[in-house]
């Protein structure tokens, strides 16, 4: 029998790997001018003959925009696809919650948009930390996405001429965002879900819902299947395939409180990381400035208020600390504070962009005021987002249109509120349901919250990880957003990867597999992987400690938010690493999971996810410690501009940090090995971002 390597890697193999230098990271970016790289690449990669596709199986883990669009497209091409999701239906993946819209360089508004402009905005918005060639490809296929979704019957917003309407989003100078009210993610996901359903009906996709991937199986170094747990029956299942695609989303839940769904987790991505896939830039996290603040300690998740609100809302806190105290004590209403006693801090600090600075800048500015003691709610973690000026402005405008002479204040407010309602009605209603305050009459309270993770599994130009045959798409990979993502770009990337990139690039790899035949699940490798999974589950259940998985998750979240949140420094990051290790130790000694593993057991599911988040959290802090520069969502207090107009603002260091940090797993997160992919910018000039 042929000698096979078993996972996890043995001691000796680990030593060998640590010697391999960064040239192991081959991005496979095609040569040639940037605008023709993708076309040339498509023309030169290997294809799989349609008859042979019928003999090839592909596993897709995760059914959000990336996973569903990939699964449907691959099945249409003829591959046999299995999809996996932990929810009860593919339609529930968290892409469904995206509000604002999806970008595409259609230039329907004739405002000078182009593929190059979308490419440029995305690279700049990412603070020059993304791979140029991938971003250009994303911009190129963006237009196909809109065509595809319209053909599927996605009901985008339209104008009275029946043509597609567009919105503007932060950080750009054109209108290129397509939308379906405040539910764009829902409509796009239901479109992809319908394409998946069509293939399920034809038998080309077999859906495994309420299933969770718990390990990757490698055979002779290649990804050949997964071990999954049927969450309803608890049965541990083996599934083999010629390639495995991970589309499991981001890891924002490492902070416990985030805008992610309760079940969003890093498990699938982390399992492939432990089997050899490098994890890139884990510290790049987007903290969204406008979320509804925490109401108390028992809160389980945070709700986003769309970025579009900053078009008309003004952000402020009181100038005087006495006023803040009176508000907290309930003795003073925000509406009673005079104009001159309000600090519109974004307008004060960034006169050029005002309330519309990018997300990372707005979040840090809010934190600065909160840290100075100006938080306006009981938890002391809120600032105001005030629509009264907008209501007055719109009211006057409407009065003029209606030819009302000398309108009274009351009349103006009624007219103005109508306009604000037509623009943001559903968001205002959502706010009122949660907070029980009327945002038309009193300013909204908002606070930044973890929203999206730009970091993720490292992939090459073909979206393949460092494990041959294992791919990673959507938010789960690292490739397109650099250190900060622009609004309405997440949906674009998920669908670009799933509809238009992966289905082509995967053929290059699978063309070598046409003679392989079905992959057996009765091999040593599957035995070994399955045993690992059941051992871990039994281990968790056998601890019989005193505290729930949530207890540890919340504790981890607090450390992450305090030391690895909006602002980071060396001392704090070292503390975080130490504390996370302690929480991890405590977890493995004291977690209490009731019930067994042979039936539906949500606590066991949570415990497994928390155990992976604990490991990721440590790597996250280690990555943040390594990157001693401020870029995009990653702000190091040591790296700020010391003087001049930009004093106190984030300072990027292109000399030393113009690279992707790709971490190789090595026994423990603390011993992960750093590989660097140096970023080259041939088509864009590197500049300092300024919003003053």
């Amino acid at each position, binding site marked *: 029998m042929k000698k096979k390597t078993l996972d996890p890697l043995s001691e000796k193999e680990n030593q060998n790997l640590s010697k391999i230098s960064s040239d192991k990271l081959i991005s496979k970016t095609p040569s040639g001018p940037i605008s023709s790289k993708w076309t040339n690449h498509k023309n030169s990669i290997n294809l799989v003959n349609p008859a042979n596709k019928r003999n090839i199986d592909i596993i897709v883990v995760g059914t959000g925009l990336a996973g569903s*669009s990939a699964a449907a*497209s691959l099945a*249409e091409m003829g591959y046999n696809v299995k999809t996996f999701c932990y*929810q*009860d*239906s*593919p*339609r*529930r993946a*968290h892409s469904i*919650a995206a509000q604002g819209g999806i970008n595409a360089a*259609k230039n329907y508004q004739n405002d000078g948009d182009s593929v190059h402009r979308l490419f440029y905005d995305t690279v700049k918005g990412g603070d020059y930390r993304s791979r140029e060639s991938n971003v250009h490809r994303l911009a190129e*296929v963006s237009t196909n996405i*809109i*065509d*595809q979704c*319209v*053909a*599927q*019957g996605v*009901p*985008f917003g*339209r*104008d*009275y*001429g*029946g043509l597609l309407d567009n919105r503007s989003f932060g950080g750009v100078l054109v209108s290129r965002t397509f939308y379906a009210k405040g*539910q764009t993610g*829902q*409509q796009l996901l*239901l479109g992809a*879900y*319908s*394409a998946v*359903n*069509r293939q*399920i*009906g034809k038998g080309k996709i077999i*859906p495994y819902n309420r299933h969770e991937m718990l390990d990757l199986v490698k055979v002779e170094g290649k990804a050949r299947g997964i071990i999954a747990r049927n969450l*309803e029956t608890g049965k541990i299942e083996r599934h083999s395939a010629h390639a495995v695609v991970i589309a499991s989303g981001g890891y924002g839940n490492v902070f416990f409180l985030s805008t992610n*769904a*309760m079940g969003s987790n890093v498990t699938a991505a982390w399992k492939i990381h432990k089997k050899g896939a490098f994890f890139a830039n884990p510290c790049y996290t987007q903290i969204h400035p406008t979320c509804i603040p925490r*109401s*108390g300690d*028992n*809160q*389980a*998740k945070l*709700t986003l208020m769309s970025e579009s609100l900053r078009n008309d809302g003004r952000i402020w806190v009181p100038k005087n600390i006495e006023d803040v105290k009176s508000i907290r004590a309930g003795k003073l209403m925000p509406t009673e504070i005079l104009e001159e006693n309000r600090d519109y801090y974004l307008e004060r600090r960034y006169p050029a962009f005002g309330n519309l600075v990018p997300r990372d800048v707005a979040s840090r500015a809010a934190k600065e005021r909160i840290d100075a003691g100006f938080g306006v709610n009981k938890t002391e973690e809120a600032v105001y987002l005030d629509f009264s000026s907008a209501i007055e402005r719109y009211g006057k405008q409407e009065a003029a249109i209606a030819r009302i002479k000398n309108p009274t204040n009351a009349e103006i407010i009624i007219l103005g509120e109508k306009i604000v309602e037509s623009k943001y009605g559903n968001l205002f209603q*959502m706010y009122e*349901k*949660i907070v029980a305050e009327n945002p038309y009459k009193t300013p909204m309270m908002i606070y930044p919250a973890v929203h999206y993770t730009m970091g993720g599994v490292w992939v090459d130009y073909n979206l393949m990880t460092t494990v041959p045959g294992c791919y990673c798409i959507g938010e789960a990979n690292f490739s397109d957003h650099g250190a900060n993502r622009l609004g309405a770009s997440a949906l674009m990337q998920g669908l670009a990867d799933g509809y*238009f990139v992966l289905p082509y690039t995967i053929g290059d790899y699978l063309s070598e597999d046409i003679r392989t035949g079905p992959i057996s699940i009765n091999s040593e490798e599957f035995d070994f992987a399955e045993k690992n999974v059941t051992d871990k589950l039994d281990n968790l259940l056998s601890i019989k400690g005193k505290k*729930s998985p*949530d207890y540890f998750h919340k504790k981890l979240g607090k450390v992450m938010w305090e030391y690895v949140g909006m602002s980071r420094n060396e001392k704090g990051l070292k503390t975080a690493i130490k504390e996370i290790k302690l929480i991890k130790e405590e977890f493995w000694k004291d977690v*209490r999971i*009731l019930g067994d593993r042979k*039936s*539906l057991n949500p*606590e066991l599911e949570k415990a497994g996810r928390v155990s992976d988040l604990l490991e990721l959290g440590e790597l996250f802090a280690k990555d943040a410690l390594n990157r001693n520069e401020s870029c995009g969502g990653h702000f190091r207090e040591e790296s700020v501009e010391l003087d001049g107009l930009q004093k106190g603002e984030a300072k990027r260091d292109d000399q030393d940090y113009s690279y992707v940090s790709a971490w190789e797993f090595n026994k423990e997160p603390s011993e992960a090995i750093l590989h660097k992919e140096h970023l080259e910018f041939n088509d864009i000039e590197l500049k300092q971002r300024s919003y003053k």
Partner: protein
Amino acid sequence: MDLKLKVWRQKNREDRGRLVDYNVAGISENSSFLEMLDILNEQLINQNIEPVSFDHDCREGICGMCSLYINGEAHGPDRKVTTCQLHMRMFNDGETIYIEPWRSSAMPVIKDLIVDRSAFDRIQQSGGFVSVNTSGSTQDANALPIPKMNADKAFDVAACIGCGACVATCKNSSAMLFVAAKVSQYAYLPQGQVERKQRVLNMVEQMDKEGFGNCTNTGACEIECPKSISIEYIAKMNREYLSASISSEE
């Protein structure tokens, strides 16, 4: 707030199930209903009692995963919300709250408050799509203008989150609002025309096969629907079905 809870506990599909009494104390009226259940579960874990299983995920009213029948109402006493958007301020201190799963033979209970909604997926698989393959050369998105009114109506029905409240609240366990939403969405759009007749026939056939009941126009589904999808779309589906049955060549 202090509350008395009567919660449906059922070990698995075969178990008969029963209501069990629990008390929770000191609940903030700003907590959401599911956060109150989180607190109950934390309390049960501390008492070494297996926590209550319930479905939930996005907790912002869009994924459609949460599904509780609270005091005899799908998604509880508030309107236009899912259970995760329901807040404790809708209840009174000292109140007794009954918490049950969706009840429908087409959506059997899996455990405690979790039900099996896979019938909804199978209905969608029978025709809830436009047969178009992924292709980089589909016609331009603006090649086919769609009247704004039709696009808006298609959106209104496409907003369905597939939670199943319509079925749970209907005395006939009818899924017609759910099916009508998808049938109507495509009927309003030019892209849906080619398969219009076959779609409604297939989806209704699958709906019947799954064991859902018929509509008797009580209108309960429209009231409980968190996305306020109107019952008039059921009438539209009936018209679609009728015309497809009469003129279909099969």
